[in-house]
């Protein structure tokens, strides 16, 4: 029902599915997607890397004593993540600070770029967040074994619990350890996807004249909430990485 449909019945042009915004499609032409195909995900991930580089390298390159806008934000982000690593994971975790900083900056800028109209939210795809979460999981496990050797297994053997309970607790601890990358990745993807889908659902209501003012107000409110959620989810992802890192460095309960 493109142009020829009757104009009054249903509002043309605003009929879309709220999940359409998450479709991965090739950037050039159309066709099957292979692992090397340049898609809109590739474009927007590249743009968030460019944004991180612009903010953290170009923005702070002058090293002015009185920082400009970009340098202030860069220094603020650096100090924020550094304090978080130090507070949550302890001083021993400072060598791993660059990894957590990279994760945090990439996720927060991907989330913020995804909020631009007509853009694509890369972090709304479980495939993207799962790579990061599995990377964290593998890194933390390797660090745990390198730092503690076999002693890393004491993470699962809670010595403060009664002896009879320990095998059952060990089973629960092992399950919860392996569930970590699942919850770590789906938390971020689910939050981003749900928020953007809700905005699109309200956007679909905007086509109905009776409730369109309400819908515009709702979109504005949801958008403000999404800005908050974008930041908080990046923060939660980074802080959970710190918690896992603390477990790897100090497995003894």
């Amino acid at each position, binding site marked *: 029902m493109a142009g020829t449909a009757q104009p009054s019945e249903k509002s043309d042009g605003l009929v879309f599915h709220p999940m359409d915004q998450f479709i991965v499609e090739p950037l050039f032409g159309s066709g099957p997607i292979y692992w090397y195909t340049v898609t809109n995900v590739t474009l927007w991930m590249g743009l968030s890397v460019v944004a991180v580089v612009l903010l953290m390298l170009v923005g702070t390159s002058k090293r002015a004593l009185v920082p400009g806008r970009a340098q202030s934000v860069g220094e603020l982000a650096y100090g924020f993540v550094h304090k978080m690593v130090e*507070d949550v994971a302890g001083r021993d975790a400072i060598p791993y600070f660059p990894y957590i900083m990279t994760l945090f900056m990439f996720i927060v800028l991907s989330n913020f770029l995804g909020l631009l109209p007509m853009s694509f939210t890369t972090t709304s795809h479980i495939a993207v967040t799962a790579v990061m979460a599995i990377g964290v999981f593998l890194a933390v496990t390797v660090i745990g074994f390198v730092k503690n050797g076999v002693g890393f297994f004491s993470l699962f053997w809670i010595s403060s619990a009664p002896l009879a309970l320990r095998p059952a607790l060990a089973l629960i601890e092992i399950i919860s350890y392996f569930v970590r990358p699942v*919850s770590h990745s*789906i938390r971020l993807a689910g939050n981003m996807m749900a928020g953007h889908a809700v905005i699109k659902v309200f956007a679909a209501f905007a086509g109905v004249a009776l409730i369109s003012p309400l819908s515009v107000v709702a979109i504005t409110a949801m958008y403000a909430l999404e800005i908050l959620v974008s930041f908080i989810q990046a*923060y*939660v992802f980074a*802080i959970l990485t710190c918690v896992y890192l603390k477990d790897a460095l100090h497995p003894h309960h």
Partner: protein
Amino acid sequence: MEGDIVQMGAYVGAGLACTGMGGAAIGVGHVVGNYISGALRNPSAAAGQTATMFIGIAFAEALGIFSFLVALLLMFAV
């Protein structure tokens, strides 16, 4: 109307799985509510516990995420 009863069951199950998110909502509300009531009693100690609150939120939320995962699996994988 088309489709079979298995698909209907999967969709109904996906809808029912979403009730698990209510549990996560209660959990997150409990964590934040207790944080705020603690923070109002002792505001000077509040700033140091913000990170702990977010970790608590994340863990409470994780179980709501599993219900979301079950819903997704029922919708697209089963």
